């Protein structure tokens, strides 16, 4: 199994969700996040005093997938998240040792 993590622009969430549903993904976890990549942050002005805000709002999406599906799922997310502008985010995957569905106790691929 793989854990696929995507840190992307908040307004792409709906597209990514729909694309994942179309692919057949049953569940995901979304967290509000903040950070920056190469684009850095933005500037705000209060009574003429300028403040640089480094951290930009992002969302972090986590999905568990079977090994065979992982690469394709990453492609689906990347395609749905892309705007072509700076700050689109990153997607990566990690190996997962086990997963358990809390309600039934099912383990491994059955728990997905």
């Amino acid at each position, binding site marked *: 199994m793989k854990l696929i993590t995507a840190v992307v622009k908040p307004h792409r969430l709906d597209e990514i969700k729909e694309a994942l549903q179309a692919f057949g993904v049953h569940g995901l976890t979304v967290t509000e996040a903040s950070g920056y990549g190469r684009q850095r942050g933005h500037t705000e*002005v209060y009574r*003429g005093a*300028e403040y640089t805000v480094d951290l930009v709002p992002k969302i972090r999406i986590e999905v568990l997938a079977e090994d065979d599906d992982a690469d394709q799922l990453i492609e689906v997310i990347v395609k749905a998240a892309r705007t072509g502008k700076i700050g689109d985010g990153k997607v990566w995957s990690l190996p997962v040792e086990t997963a358990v569905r809390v309600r039934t106790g099912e383990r491994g691929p059955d728990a997905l």
Partner: protein
Amino acid sequence: MAPAIMLAADAPKLSSANTGFMLICSALVMLMTPGLAFFYGGMVRVKSTLNMLMMSFISLGIVTILWVLYGFSLAFGTHNSLIGWNSDWFGLSNIGLTELWDGYSIPVFVFMVFQLMFAIITPALISGALADRVKFSAWSLFIALWVTIVYVPVAHWVWGADGWAYKLGVIDFAGGTAVHINAGAAALGVILVIGKRVGFKRDPMRPHSLPLVMLGAGLLWFGWFGFNAGSWLGNDDGVGALMFVNTQVATAAAMLAWLAYEKIRHGAFTTLGAASGAVAGLVAITPSGGAVSPLGAIAVGAIAGVACAAAVGLKFRFGYDDSLDVVGVHMVGGIIGSLLIGFFATGKGQSTATGVFYGDHTFTQLWKQCAGVFAVLAYSLIVSAVLAFLLDKTLGMRVTEDEEISGIDQAEHAETAYDFSGAGGGVTGSLAAPALAAAQNKKVDA
């Protein structure tokens, strides 16, 4: 406080219309202090919101009591040109219910309570310069002493029947000198003594809630109609109405001017700029609104809007931490409004004195305004600085650095403004008061 244009034959009688009007104006001015608390409260960081609110709110408590005990008597009694006294007014002990304020159709009680609201908001204004770092006990004592030895004499000079500035002919309709320059200069004096916030010019100190700032600015604008229009102490001859109009006009002009300035200078029309511009306009029209025409009010507002927007940056250049720009908005705005009387006074409002652009085109009124402005500025700045120095050497003015960094709300008030913990339904920590728990158990048992 406003010069009396009363004919000797007109012995005033109690006017229920004017009395009702002035009671409403007094209530409007009272609302300015909580309005100011929100205006300031939104501009500080989350960790010192409550302290900022409390520094204004406590003034309602302290000044009210002092004013009734002796403040009103010292400010508005007659004694000499520097200080007043009237033993009948000590503790308001011998004032008749229908006894009229000298030359006006309203009771002494009404004038007293209207003036009380001015005395309350003036020290509250100072607190904006002291955000995040002053012990609440020291601040409370500062208010009591400052009102007694700075506000009361200055009010007497400017508005007392035998005050030297009043007799000289200095025009201060509703408090540009006695309230705004006084508070702004005091703020400057105190911060020169107590120093900067930890992290000034290094850490970001963004306002935590601009909606609160807007709410506060809106309440100030609304209450200011009582502050200004009420300062004619009745509305029999239209000067109060002129003042009302000028208040609205100058405030609008100042807001637009501030926004235009910052769009050109910094690239955006900001919410804080709109709120600050409005307050700058209100400050500037306060002394001048009874003397200028509505077109003059537009000029006063626009000049104040640009000048105050430019002035608020000075603290970074000179390195004094006027946290919320009390000096930049109230002192500078007050000076501008007071001095512009010397240019724009038409002679058709509260007095026949005219400015450079009207009447005989002389500088006479301008010099009088200068005398009033700089005397109050110097007195307030020096005495406030000495007062802060003495309090710092005895009680200590500042909280510890640790307390300042972790937040003055918790250190001084044992509270926090917001609960941000969403986990588990917002439950944070455990109930630390066994007495409360026991009390609750008893209720359940019964």
